[in-house]
């Protein structure tokens, strides 16, 4: 097996195009995961025990089923019920929802970590519920979990190739495509690996920076 530099150069633009979809899917999915995860966490803290348990088991179910069946379900089964969405949209939504159940746990731990005295000070100052959460608890809780949330960004990025199961033209999908045309897989797959490393390393540096910024004061 010989490395063909000419061939590598030819396929690179296609692969970078695939990377673009991978990055878009990851970032938009991540935003969904961050917001929806917080929604899950807050819904689990309502006064109604029954409601909290329902939410708990819904998230537990999503978290304990693999991503690929979920992708199939959203992309192939929902249209049968009259909901048709594009493959990229379906992939982004599924990735976001799947990871929101993980971020929900992260938020939960962050909130549990806020000292009891902070809640007591809120009561002593008579702060209304909304202010307790928005001004005191969440800012402190989220700051504590920034490193963990950052790790999930990288984990999501590395899970995004699973979107090829529903034909999203992301990086790995593109690599298979160009490979099957020329029957040379070594170069595209190696480049895929390298691109993943490059993007992951850059993201983890950014996450580390964010972490350092919020760790002080």
């Amino acid at each position: 097996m010989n490395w063909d530099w000419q061939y590598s150069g030819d396929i690179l633009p296609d692969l970078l195009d695939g990377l673009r979809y991978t990055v878009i899917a990851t970032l938009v999915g991540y935003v969904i995961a961050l917001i929806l995860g917080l929604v899950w966490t807050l819904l689990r803290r309502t006064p109604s025990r029954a409601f909290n348990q329902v939410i708990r088991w819904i998230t537990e179910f999503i978290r304990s089923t693999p991503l690929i069946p979920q992708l199939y379900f959203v992309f192939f089964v929902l249209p049968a019920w009259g909901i048709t969405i594009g493959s990229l949209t379906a992939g982004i939504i599924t990735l976001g929802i799947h990871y929101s159940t993980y971020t929900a746990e992260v938020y939960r731990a962050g909130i549990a970590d806020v000292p009891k005295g902070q809640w007591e000070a809120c009561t002593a100052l008579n702060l209304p519920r909304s202010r307790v959460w928005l001004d005191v608890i969440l800012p402190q809780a989220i700051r504590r979990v920034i490193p963990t949330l950052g790790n999930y960004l990288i984990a999501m990025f590395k899970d995004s190739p699973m979107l090829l199961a529903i034909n999203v033209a992301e990086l790995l999908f593109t690599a298979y495509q160009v490979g099957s045309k020329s029957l040379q897989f070594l170069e595209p797959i190696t480049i895929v690996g390298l691109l993943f490393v490059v993007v992951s390393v850059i993201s983890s540096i950014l996450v580390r920076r964010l972490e350092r910024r919020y760790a002080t004061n």
Partner: protein
Amino acid sequence: MPPTDTTPENPAPKDSEGGATPADAAAGKDVATEKGVSTQKGGTPEDEPAAELPHGEAPGIRFEKVVKRFGSNVVLRELDFTVAPGERVTLIGPSGSGKTTILRLLMTLETLDEGLIWIGDETLWHMDRGGKRVPANQKHLHEMRKQVGMVFQQFNLFPNMNVLRNLTEGPVRVLGVPKDEAVERAKGLLDLVGLADKENAHPTQLSGGQQQRVAIARSLAMQPRVLLLDEVTSALDPELVVGVQDLLRDIARQSDLTMLCVTHEMTFAKDISNRVLMFDQGQIVEEGPPDQIFGEPSEQRTRDFLQAVLAS
């Protein structure tokens, strides 16, 4: 029956001098020589700091057969006691005797099991509905809490806000004070506690003593009528204790807040309070003016406790 009257017929004018509060009589000679934290900066009129402090309408407090349990552990057993409007009472006793629980019940940080707690002529944990006394809802608790402020052993400042925001958060969000006015008052209070230059600092950048003084200012910013002090100097380095105590003495002198204070600092208790209650096992063992309790306690339990505290 309402235990105490709130004497609204004598609302002290806002700018009046701290004047003849009961604390003066009790603390008298001790406080006269103390001049700890500067309360009067150049240019401000003599009575300016007093304007920052709540005046008038301090309610009394009464506990009526109050029972509090934690699981099978009975912390307060049918406790009865009364605090007069504007009175300063210090609660002493061994740990686990229930004194902190009393403050936490008044701040609604613990729920009441049995009995009644009166603040002024209203019950804290119960409200009136169609002539019947029913457990209080959140709205009632919210209204009642407006009268009460608390300073904690661990300060509990909000670390995600700067000092000024710590002081304006409550007034703006709860009392609906306009932002500018809240900032002005917060600055006045920071001046009062001697930290006017720290308004932009974050709590983590302050020493324990400074944090506690900010916490005191924060509780005063809510204009409470009752101030609860829960071992406010216990978490401080020894050399920082005096500054906080001096500040509290000044506040006691210049306001007419009803104050309940849990402390192990006997000199401070002597200075600040009109009356001392000695607790053991959820009951009052002995009570009286500080001179009597610390000077010639009549109960053996009190003597043992004071000896243990002095030995430490």
